[in-house]
Structure formats: structure tokens, C-alpha cells
């Protein structure tokens, strides 16, 4: 079956398609059998309408990367590995309340320029008024007159950056007319972890024109959240109406899910799929960061002279049922339109659950081929849902809100003002452009605009326009079809030789070679992990807490010190040779960082966090800090200065563009603006940087040797945030030995010199430890690297190269006061074709 595909080497697309048609069940969604893909995505909300409050909060934004690798382990055995990482930060609604009750309290940063900081969530108001019909009353502060105002508004709160990582593995086995897949994975974030397992299968009938698909999955999730600092003081305990006692919310959830589908080829240009799925969930399903406002009005009180009733508004954690059953029914239709050489995809989904939500989703994609591998896909999607039974913007309870008379039994059992449970509609439209290259490489870029509005709900009864918002999603993806590549490469001896030469270079070395022929392409995915931990050093000496306190933060004192800092970096290395003497290289990066701190023994007393921003910053440092997102983007040109049969000398000249954020700030806490996060947690340098490298390599029998000088020169005196990282000079040399024709081991030495950070943040910034001072960055470092490299000389994965290197620090001479480095791991997969 599969051999039928591989045997087709002629570039006859019709023959290829027929072969594919014979081999694969037409009704399945399987893409290429062996492929590697990478995607970057960015989603951003638009600003929310807060009416009279002008929030300085940035709306929520999310950066995502996804990698997906599919391989064949044997003729009928498939393996797929997926990795997803999201990092998000920004403001979202935490509750809803009448506008008259002023939920978004502002702090003025610069009155002249009318700049306001993010409005603090103000979830409690002991003195609000309603009329005899319980409509909210707005009081004019000058005339003291009341006017009815039913306008609602969200109260926003913002979050420091947070990262989620998910990995999953899936094994599949194919029979002639059936397949079975078994998978498992795990997802981890600061306050939510889940693990899942699933099984899915397919049975083909009717000469593969009909398929039955089935699947089942189980997910176990755990919430372990710390309540919002700014909001915690205002959240009430359900029993006593006093301040909530516990700021930690823990919960567990279990989901069981099953699905059944039938796919049918209708004719030679159309197919349809119908499927149903059912999920039952038990456990904690509320969002720990969402509160519901409860309005207490004592019905026994006398009506005031202006017709007003006194009322109190308090916030409670939202309450959701601990069981949910969800049903989904899908219909998908695909039609090829020969006249336009296009395909139409129509999807309809009906969703309903026992929380009272019914939702309709309809989407349509028109995939238009433009020739030469190009296609363009306009898309439109409409979604509409009605509200959950327990959704309410706020709860009205007719009782006095004080500890002695409060009766929690008079409150509804469940309530939530989460806008996602309200009635509304959403309309989105987008465009995707795809280019397929002959050698099995595919690039894709897409954008989609999304608008959410109560008025867009099917029928009437949508939520008010205070909850309307919009957003956009963009993505860029790269896919490599490994099966096509290996076919194209099967007789390419120069590549084999080239791959063999490349096999000996350690994973952590970049810019080491120029592609040999005009038109050559090489794709690499590089991953790097680096870690710092241990006892803080001054130059080469391990020092005591007291020394750090007194000298690490000169001219001030240090309060805390980093405990552990780690960085994960994902790089995509795209190389193309327009001529045989020049190679161009584009290197986008995605990174995330993590840091924990501890209090220093002998530090000065921490100022009161309720009255002093520095105190709030020091207390807040007990929480781990994370950042993540797109890093700086490298653009390079590589030339051969010398090219002999066994030696190469090449030079790489390039720059990095400051695409990484260098102005990330911590969220407000205890009503204080904490300002910029520590320098080392920023994702980019913020400056354009010049990065030259000179590399020499030589091969002698089974031995290979190389040496490289490289540097980073900052081309600007400071970045937008106000600082500039130190320049870097690095010298490295390596030797490697080919044990077999596919496996090599390497040893490397690295010397790195980096200057200290110059300048300082312009803006709010609390210096609590040595990492907040520029003099404590850079230094002189020596590492020894041990690497192992494998390259596939033949078989379906011919031309693939996989290498790993561990860099072990042997000498740290740091500038000022820094944590010692523990080591760095590099892993590189590359493919030249």
C-alpha cells in the first residue's frame, strides 16, 4: 500500500494523486505520513469598553508555538509527537457590576498627560443606592441627586505573564482497511495541570468510500490557584460575609469523552462527514479568578426622601455546578469546484449542555488554487450561544448585608458573571495564504478578525453591549513533508556528502557552513535550555547573604536574591542559497523564562506592602516570575572565504531585529504599579544587534575539527525601555570523531566575554535584588561541551540530522553579583535538500 506511493518517482502529479487515492482511505483526515511542522500564533483582544474609566491596562495577548512531528517507525506503525506552548498576559474581566457603583477605580500616573494606570478592581462598595424597583441609582456628587442607571460594566484585572506547556505522544497502527491510535499527554501551567489519554480508530468499508471513526478520551485536571492580590481583600466568605479566609483555591476535575463519526465519499468531487460526541465532566469547573457581584438590599428599610434605598455590593467567588454533560453534533461537507480549481468546506456544529447552553457554529472556507503551489483561503465563521441557566451579570438579594442577618441560603446555588456564559454571537473572517514548494516544503500565513457582541446572538436576548469586544489571531506555519523530501533526495549524492560533513558539528554551533549549491534549502529546528542556580557569586567567589545585602545592590541594599533562573529557546533556522557562494539565513526565535527568588538573610526590614510599593514588590517576589513570547529575529548572509575538498573557511554577517519584547512589566499588586520586570527576564535586547561570525572546519579521515569566533555588537545606545545589554565576544573550538557512518561524538571548548548592562529602565521599576542592577550582568565564562550527532545516511529519513550537546560550565567570572550557571542543553534537528 505504502510502497505504491514510494514507487512513484516520476513527476506526474496525476499519477501521484491516483496512487495516493489508492493507498489512503479517502475519508480520513490524515495528512502526509511523515512530516514535521512548526507554527507561531498570536492572539490579541481589543480594548474593552469601560465607559467613564480609561484603563491603562493592556488587553490580553497570547503568543503560541506548536510543533508537530509524524514519523513511521515501521511499515504500518506511526508515531506523532506534539508540543504546544502558550504565554499570555494582560487584562480580562473579573466581574460585572452596575456602572453607577464604580467598579473600575483608577490611579493617576500623570495627570497632565491624562495617563491613568490600570484601574484596580474595586469589588466592594458599602454605600450604593437602588430605587424601589431595585434599579441602580447614580448619585451626582455635586447636587446629591439620584438618577436611574442600569448600565453595566466589566471590572478588569490584569495578570503578569503566564506560560502553559503541553506535550503529547500518539502511536498508530494501520491495517489495510482500519487503523487504531493511542495517545497520551500532559499540560502544565502555574495554576492548572492536566493529564489525558485517548484512543481512536477508523474502519473502512465500501472500497474505502465509507469510514466509521470512533474515539474516547479521559482527562484529569487539577486547579491550584492563588487568588488575585488586588481583588483578594474584597472577596467575601460565603458563610460569614467576612473577608475570604483562604487565598488558595484547589479543585479537581475529571472528563470522560466519546465520539462516533461516519464519513462518506459522495462522488469523485465531494464528501461528507457526520459525527457526534459526548463529554461528562465532574469536579471543580469554576474559574478561580472570576467573581460575581452580589447586591444586598434590606427590604425592611424606609425609602429615602429621594426615593432611594441603601444597598451594599460585595463580591463572591463564582459558583458553578460540579457536573456538566456536553453533546456536540457536527456536519462537514467538502466539495471540489472544478471550474475554479477550488474546494469549498462547509462545517456546522450544534452544541448543547445541561448548563442550559445551546450553541450553533457555522463556518465556510474557500480554498482557491492560484497555480505554482500558491493558494488563498478566505474564511467566514459565525457562532451564537444562549446564556447558561446560572449566568447573571450580578445577583440581587433582598436581605441586609451584614454578618448578623446574612443568610447564604437566600443566594442562588450557582452564579457566574463570566461573559463566556452569557448570550451572544461572534462573527469572524480571515484569510490564509499557502505556498507549496516542489521539494515538500509548505509555508502558510493566516489572519482572522473576531468580533463578539450581544446583538449578534441568534434571536433576541443577547447580553448588553458593555460586554462586546473584538480581537485578532495571526499565524505563520512551516511544514516539511519528509516523505516527499526523501524521494527528491534519493539520488542526490552531494547532499549525502554534505550531510555527512555536517554530521560532525556540535548542536550548539551555528553559522558553521554555507549551502553547496544554488537553490539548496536547509531547515533546522533548534532548542536550547539554560539554567542558573546555586549560591550567588561575586567574580569567582561564592559569597554570603550578608555580602549580597550590603554590596550587591550598590548604592542601595538588596532584599532578595535569585534562587533559580531558566530559559527555554525554540529557534527556527531557515537557510536558502540563491547562488552557490551565498547562503541567506532567517532565524525567528520563541522563548520563555522562569525565575524564583528568596529573601536574603540580614536584609533590611521589608517596608509595609500595603503602604509602600517597594514592600509590595519584595513580597510579590515570593511568587515565581515567568515571561514568554517571540524573541529577536536573526537575518544573516554566509559566504565561503575558502572552500577546499576537506576544509572550509566562511564568514557570516547579520543582524538581529528587536522583535522580542524588552519592556515587559509586572502586574499591579496591592494597588501598586510594580513596573518593569527584572532585566534578565525580558525576551529581547530591544536593540538592533550586529552579529558576525568566522568559522573554519577541516575533516581528516574520521576526525573533524572546527573553530569559530563570533560576536554581538549592539547598534544602539539604548532600547525603548532605556537600557542596552552588553556586547558579546565568543571563541570556540571543537573536535569530533565519526564512530560509524551515522554517529559522531564531539568535544568542544567555549570562551565567552560579555560586557555589563548599561543604562536603566525609564519608568516605574523597583530594585529589590542584584538582578535589578546593570553592573551585575555579563562576565567571563568558560564551558566544555559534550555532544552526540546522528545523521540518517539512507532509508526514508535520509538527510535528517539530530544532534545534542551539553555545555558544562567550568569557570564563571561574573561581573558583580550573579547566580552561577549550571549548564545548557542544545538539541538540533536539521534537514538539507
Amino acid at each position, binding site marked *: 500500500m505504502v510502497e505504491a506511493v514510494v514507487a512513484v518517482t516520476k513527476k506526474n502529479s496525476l499519477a501521484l*494523486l*491516483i496512487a495516493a*487515492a489508492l493507498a489512503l482511505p479517502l475519508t480520513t483526515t490524515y495528512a502526509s505520513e511523515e512530516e514535521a511542522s512548526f507554527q507561531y*500564533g498570536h492572539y490579541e483582544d481589543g480594548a474593552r469598553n469601560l465607559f467613564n474609566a480609561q484603563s491603562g491596562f493592556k488587553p*490580553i495577548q497570547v503568543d503560541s508555538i*506548536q510543533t*508537530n512531528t509524524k514519523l513511521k517507525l515501521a511499515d504500518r506503525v506511526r508515531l506523532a509527537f506534539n508540543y504546544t506552548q502558550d504565554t499570555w498576559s494582560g487584562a480580562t474581566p473579573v466581574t460585572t457590576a452596575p456602572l453607577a457603583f464604580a467598579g473600575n477605580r483608577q490611579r493617576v500616573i500623570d495627570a497632565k498627560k491624562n495617563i491613568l494606570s490600570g484601574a484596580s478592581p474595586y469589588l466592594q462598595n458599602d454605600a450604593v443606592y437602588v430605587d424601589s424597583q431595585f434599579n441602580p441609582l447614580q448619585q451626582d456628587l455635586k447636587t446629591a441627586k439620584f438618577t436611574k442607571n442600569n448600565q453595566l460594566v466589566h471590572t478588569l484585572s490584569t*495578570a503578569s505573564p503566564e506560560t*502553559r506547556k*503541553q506535550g503529547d505522544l500518539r502511536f498508530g497502527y494501520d491495517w489495510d482497511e482500519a487503523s487504531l491510535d493511542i*495517545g497520551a499527554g500532559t*499540560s*502544565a501551567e502555574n495554576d*492548572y495541570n492536566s493529564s*489525558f489519554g*485517548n484512543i481512536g480508530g477508523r474502519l473502512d*468499508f*465500501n*472500497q474505502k*468510500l465509507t469510514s466509521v471513526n470512533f474515539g*474516547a*478520551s479521559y482527562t484529569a*485536571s487539577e486547579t491550584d490557584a492563588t487568588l488575585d492580590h488586588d481583588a483578594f481583600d474584597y472577596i467575601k466568605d460565603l458563610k460569614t460575609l467576612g473577608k475570604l479566609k483562604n487565598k488558595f483555591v484547589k479543585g479537581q476535575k475529571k472528563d470522560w*469523552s466519546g*465520539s462516533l*463519526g*461516519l464519513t*462518506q465519499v*459522495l*462522488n*469523485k468531487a465531494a464528501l*461528507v462527514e*457526520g*459525527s*457526534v*460526541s459526548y463529554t461528562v465532566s465532574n469536579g471543580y469547573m469554576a474559574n478561580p479568578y472570576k467573581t460575581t457581584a452580589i447586591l444586598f438590599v434590606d427590604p425592611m428599610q424606609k425609602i429615602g426622601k429621594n426615593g432611594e434605598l441603601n444597598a451594599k455590593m460585595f463580591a463572591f467567588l463564582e459558583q458553578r455546578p460540579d457536573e456538566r454533560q*456536553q453533546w456536540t*453534533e*457536527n456536519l462537514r461537507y*467538502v466539495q471540489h469546484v*472544478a471550474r475554479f480549481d477550488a*474546494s469549498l468546506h462547509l462545517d456546522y*456544529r450544534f*452544541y448543547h449542555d445541561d448548563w442550559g*447552553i445551546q*450553541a450553533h457554529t457555522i463556518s465556510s*472556507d474557500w480554498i482557491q*488554487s492560484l497555480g505554482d503551489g500558491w493558494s488563498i483561503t478566505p474564511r467566514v465563521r459565525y457562532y451564537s*450561544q444562549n446564556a447558561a441557566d446560572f449566568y447573571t451579570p450580578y445577583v440581587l438579594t433582598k436581605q441586609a448585608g451584614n454578618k448578623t442577618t446574612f443568610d447564604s441560603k437566600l443566594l442562588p446555588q450557582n452564579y457566574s458573571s463570566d461573559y*463566556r456564559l452569557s448570550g451572544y454571537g*461572534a462573527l469572524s473572517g480571515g484569510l*490564509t495564504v*499557502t505556498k507549496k514548494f516542489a521539494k515538500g516544503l509548505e509555508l*502558510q500565513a*493566516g489572519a482572522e478578525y473576531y468580533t463578539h457582541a450581544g446583538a449578534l446572538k441568534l434571536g433576541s436576548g443577547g447580553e448588553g453591549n458593555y460586554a462586546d469586544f473584538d*480581537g485578532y*489571531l495571526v*499565524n505563520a*506555519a512551516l*511544514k516539511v513533508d519528509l516523505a516527499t523530501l526523501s524521494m527528491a533526495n534519493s539520488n542526490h549524492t552531494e547532499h549525502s556528502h554534505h550531510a555527512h560533513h555536517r554530521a560532525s558539528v556540535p548542536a550548539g554551533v551555528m553559522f558553521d557552513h554555507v549551502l553547496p549549491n544554488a537553490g539548496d534549502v536547509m531547515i533546522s529546528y533548534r532548542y536550547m535550555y539554560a539554567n542558573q542556580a546555586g549560591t550567588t557569586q561575586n567574580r569567582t567567589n561564592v559569597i554570603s547573604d550578608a555580602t549580597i545585602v550590603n554590596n550587591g545592590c550598590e548604592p542601595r541594599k538588596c532584599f532578595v536574591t535569585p534562587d533559580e533562573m531558566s530559559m527555554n529557546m525554540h529557534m527556527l533556522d531557515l537557510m536558502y542559497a540563491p547562488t552557490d557562494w551565498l547562503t541567506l539565513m532567517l532565524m525567528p526565535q520563541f522563548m520563555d523564562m522562569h525565575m524564583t527568588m528568596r529573601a536574603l538573610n540580614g536584609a533590611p526590614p521589608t517596608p509595609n506592602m500595603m503602604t509602600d510599593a517597594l514592600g509590595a514588590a519584595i513580597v510579590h517576589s515570593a511568587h515565581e516570575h515567568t515571561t514568554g513570547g517571540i524573541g529577536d529575529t536573526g537575518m544573516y548572509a554566509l559566504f565561503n572565504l575558502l572552500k577546499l575538498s576537506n576544509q572550509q573557511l566562511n564568514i557570516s554577517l547579520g543582524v538581529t531585529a528587536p522583535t522580542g519584547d524588552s519592556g515587559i512589566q509586572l502586574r499591579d499588586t496591592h494597588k501598586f504599579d510594580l513596573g518593569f520586570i527584572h532585566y534578565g527576564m525580558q525576551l529581547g535586547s530591544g536593540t538592533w544587534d550586529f552579529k558576525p561570525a568566522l568559522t573554519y572546519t577541516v575533516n581528516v579521515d574520521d576526525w573533524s575539527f572546527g573553530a569559530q569566533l563570533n560576536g554581538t555588537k549592539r547598534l544602539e545606545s539604548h532600547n525603548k525601555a532605556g537600557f542596552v545589554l552588553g556586547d558579546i565576544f565568543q571563541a570556540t573550538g571543537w573536535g569530533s570523531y565519526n564512530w560509524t557512518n551515522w554517529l559522531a561524538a564531539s568535544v568542544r571548548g567555549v570562551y565567552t566575554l560579555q560586557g555589563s548592562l548599561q543604562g536603566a529602565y525609564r519608568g516605574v521599576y523597583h530594585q529589590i535584588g542584584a538582578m535589578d542592577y546593570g553592573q551585575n550582568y555579563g562576565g567571563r565564562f568558560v564551558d566544555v561541551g559534550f555532544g552526540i550527532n546522528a545523521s540518517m545516511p539512507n532509508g526514508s529519513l535520509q538527510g535528517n540530522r539530530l544532534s545534542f550537546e551539553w555545555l558544562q560550565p567550568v569557570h564563571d567570572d561574573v561581573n558583580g553579583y550573579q547566580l552561577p550557571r549550571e549548564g545548557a542543553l542544545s538539541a538540533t534537528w536539521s534537514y538539507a535538500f
Partner: protein
Amino acid sequence: MYRFFYLLPIIFLWGCSSVSPWERGTLAKSEMRLDVAPLQSSLRSHQYGSREAASGGGQSGGGGCGCY
């Protein structure tokens, strides 16, 4: 169980369909797959899932929250 009834018309179509192997060139094109760009679809599903109450419908799911 009534929910499965709407699958019946598809089952009826089963018997009507006859597409010979040499007529399947169009159906084998990548743009005729039910999910043409799975990575893009999963990104979209995640974004919709973080903004809408309805989710799922895909085969054998599972995953984390990432709720923002």
C-alpha cells in the same frame, strides 16, 4: 439516542456512491481533506475555546486549560 438519527441519511448515501480508483485523483488532493491545516485548526480551536462556552466536537480530545 435520537441524536444518532441524523447520521442515517449518510448511511443511505453509502449505497449510492461508486467512485472507481482512477476517479479518485481530485479526492486525494490535500485541499479535499476534512482538516486541511490541522495546526492552524488547533490554534483556532484553542482561541475559540478560551472565548466561547461551546467546545469540542473533534475526535478524542484532551488538553490543558490555558484559559485567559
